[in-house]
């Protein structure tokens, strides 16, 4: 077994093949077979992820040349600690969402048929992006991800969902075009597309800068960074809960992941201090604006969606905190940034699932609809609460650990203004989350409409929330995983 892990062929392509096979099968199979196929597929993908993890532990970072064509001609997949972290996260969250959806979608029989293939495509696209080391391949991956995400949002065919998905689609398309134009410039000037190879030859030129700027703009749009964020809240709020969870938890992170690969891996020398500060400022603006808007929302899911805008803002602080700061500050920020992504992914997925359950249980989508929820104390409430703890960055959650690292980094690098952003952002998130909590303690005049959600729904939300919480206690391992992928770092 051990020799197979070190010697045997890498299992990386299976992480994409399996979800694609799943989608093909579930498109052809009848409705009755779909759950069976989904279960098997999820099991197999989880197994594959696990084996990939074991392989990585044995042999460390490695590349996989598709079709045995070496770069620059071919495309290769790249596995390092960061990609692995995201693969694991994706597998974990998506399988929980699958579990949740399996039960939740019983209310939407028509949507259900097409939900599974779209979910599988979405999964495949995410894995493509985490593994991809090729600029144009990333474009195709982004489109695949964007289309399947748009489809998932539009699935119910309701007015709101359609408007949101159209908005989402147009944002995604615009973002991809900006990316594509950047790729065109880079290819024209460099003659190759592989990120790791480009890192060696990337020169400081007008075209290089222009390409980076364009790609950054596209990615910022796709990750709903501050002034370009308006498509995100309606899309995430109007989708079905498992879809919202997936989108907010994972899909929104893809663009950020690529952004980091782009700047810190491909062209680290091109990131000037002021550019990094600008990115950080956008992040800070997102933190404040998203938080403020979340405080103003009256719909539960909109509140959660705006919180995503704010939380994604924290991620952008990674750039100013790793640019031109000392080695130690860079390490802390790197680890903190990715830990923030991890904990937010878990917490936000949990929160959307829980919010969906709460809406289902209370029969109303607005905040006052929660009156009296505390009386029944559904597990979803607990899930929501625990996820909220992580989002606020209160100990002992993963969010706290992440913010602690980011704070330390800011302190160490003397960029005290980010400390203010982090702390006041936490305070803002506390405001909107307690705004929800508070509703649950108000006694309701009509308690009879309460409807206990199925146990699976509750447990899936709770499981993710507990994971987000446990991340605070068990963050040493992910931290190590992240630290191995520090660009230009030791490991």
């Amino acid at each position, binding site marked *: 077994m051990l020799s197979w892990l070190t010697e045997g062929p890498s299992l990386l392509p299976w992480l994409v093949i399996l979800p694609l096979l799943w989608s093909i099968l579930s498109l052809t199979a009848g409705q009755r077979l779909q759950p069976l196929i989904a279960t098997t597929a999820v099991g197999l993908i989880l197994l594959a992820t696990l084996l990939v993890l074991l392989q990585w532990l044995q042999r460390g970072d490695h590349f996989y040349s598709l079709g045995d064509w070496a770069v620059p001609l071919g495309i290769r997949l790249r596995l390092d600690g960061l990609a692995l972290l995201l693969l694991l996260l994706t597998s974990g969250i998506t399988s929980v969402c699958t579990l949740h959806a399996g039960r939740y979608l019983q209310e939407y029989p028509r949507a259900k048929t097409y939900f599974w293939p779209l979910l599988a495509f979405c999964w495949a696209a995410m894995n493509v992006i985490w593994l991809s080391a090729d600029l144009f391949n990333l474009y195709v991956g982004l489109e695949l991800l964007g289309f399947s995400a748009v489809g998932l949002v539009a699935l119910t065919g309701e007015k709101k969902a359609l408007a949101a998905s159209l908005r989402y*689609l147009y944002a995604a398309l615009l973002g991809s*075009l900006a990316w594509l134009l950047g790729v065109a410039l880079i290819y024209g000037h460099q003659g190759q597309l592989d990120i790791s190879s480009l890192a060696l030859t990337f020169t400081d030129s007008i075209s290089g800068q222009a390409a980076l700027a364009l790609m950054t703009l596209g990615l910022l749009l796709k990750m709903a960074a501050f002034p370009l964020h308006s498509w995100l809240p309606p899309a995430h709020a109007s989708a079905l809960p498992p879809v919202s969870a997936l989108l907010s938890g994972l899909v929104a992170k893809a663009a950020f992941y690529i952004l980091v690969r782009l700047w810190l891996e491909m062209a680290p020398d091109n990131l000037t201090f002021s550019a990094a500060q600008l990115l950080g400022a956008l992040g800070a603006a997102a933190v404040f604006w998203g938080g403020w808007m979340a405080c103003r929302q009256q719909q539960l899911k909109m509140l959660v969606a705006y919180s995503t805008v704010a939380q994604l803002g924290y991620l952008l602080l990674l750039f100013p905190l790793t640019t031109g700061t000392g080695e130690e500050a860079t390490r802390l920020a790197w680890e903190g940034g990715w830990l923030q992504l991890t904990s937010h992914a878990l917490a936000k997925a949990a929160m959307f699932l829980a919010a969906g359950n709460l809406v289902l249980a209370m029969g109303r989508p607005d905040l006052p609809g929660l009156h009296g929820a505390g009386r029944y104390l559904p597990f979803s409430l607990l899930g929501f609460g625990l996820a909220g703890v992580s989002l606020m960055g209160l100990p002992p959650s993963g969010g706290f650990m992440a913010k602690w690292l980011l704070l330390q980094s800011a302190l160490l690098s003397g960029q005290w203004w980010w400390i203010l952003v982090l702390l006041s952002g936490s305070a803002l998130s506390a405001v909107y989350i307690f705004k929800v909590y508070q509703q649950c303690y108000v006694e309701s005049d009509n308690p009879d409409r309460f409807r206990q959600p199925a146990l699976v729904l509750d447990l899936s939300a709770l499981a993710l929330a507990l994971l987000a919480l446990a991340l605070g206690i068990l963050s040493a391992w992910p931290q190590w995983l992240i630290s191995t992928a520090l660009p230009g770092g030791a490991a």
Partner: protein
Amino acid sequence: MNTFLPYTLAGGALVILGLTGFILHRHLIRRLLAFNLTGSGCFLVMTGLAQQGQGVDAVPQALVLTGIVVAVSATALALVLIRRWYHLTGLTGLPEDIEPELQQGDNPAEGKTQGAPH
């Protein structure tokens, strides 16, 4: 290889025009057209620029072929959504964009601003 330069520049111009149109237009199909123009511009830049440097190059051509197919899919997907949206609401723009016009229009109750009769 100078034959390629005008097309590269034309591609750049297309990108700019398309982008401006994409931002400024409110009608969803018009925005879709703008998107397609921008896409064509990107494709031109991709092929033209690469071939300026290296002569006829199959790789960007293959990439653009992929890009064209993706663009068609995008167009079709958007049209599906637009039609469904139109059937549900009678609108050809997104509600957020139309709102201010609704308030200006004579007959906001009709809710079909974009399609107001002549």
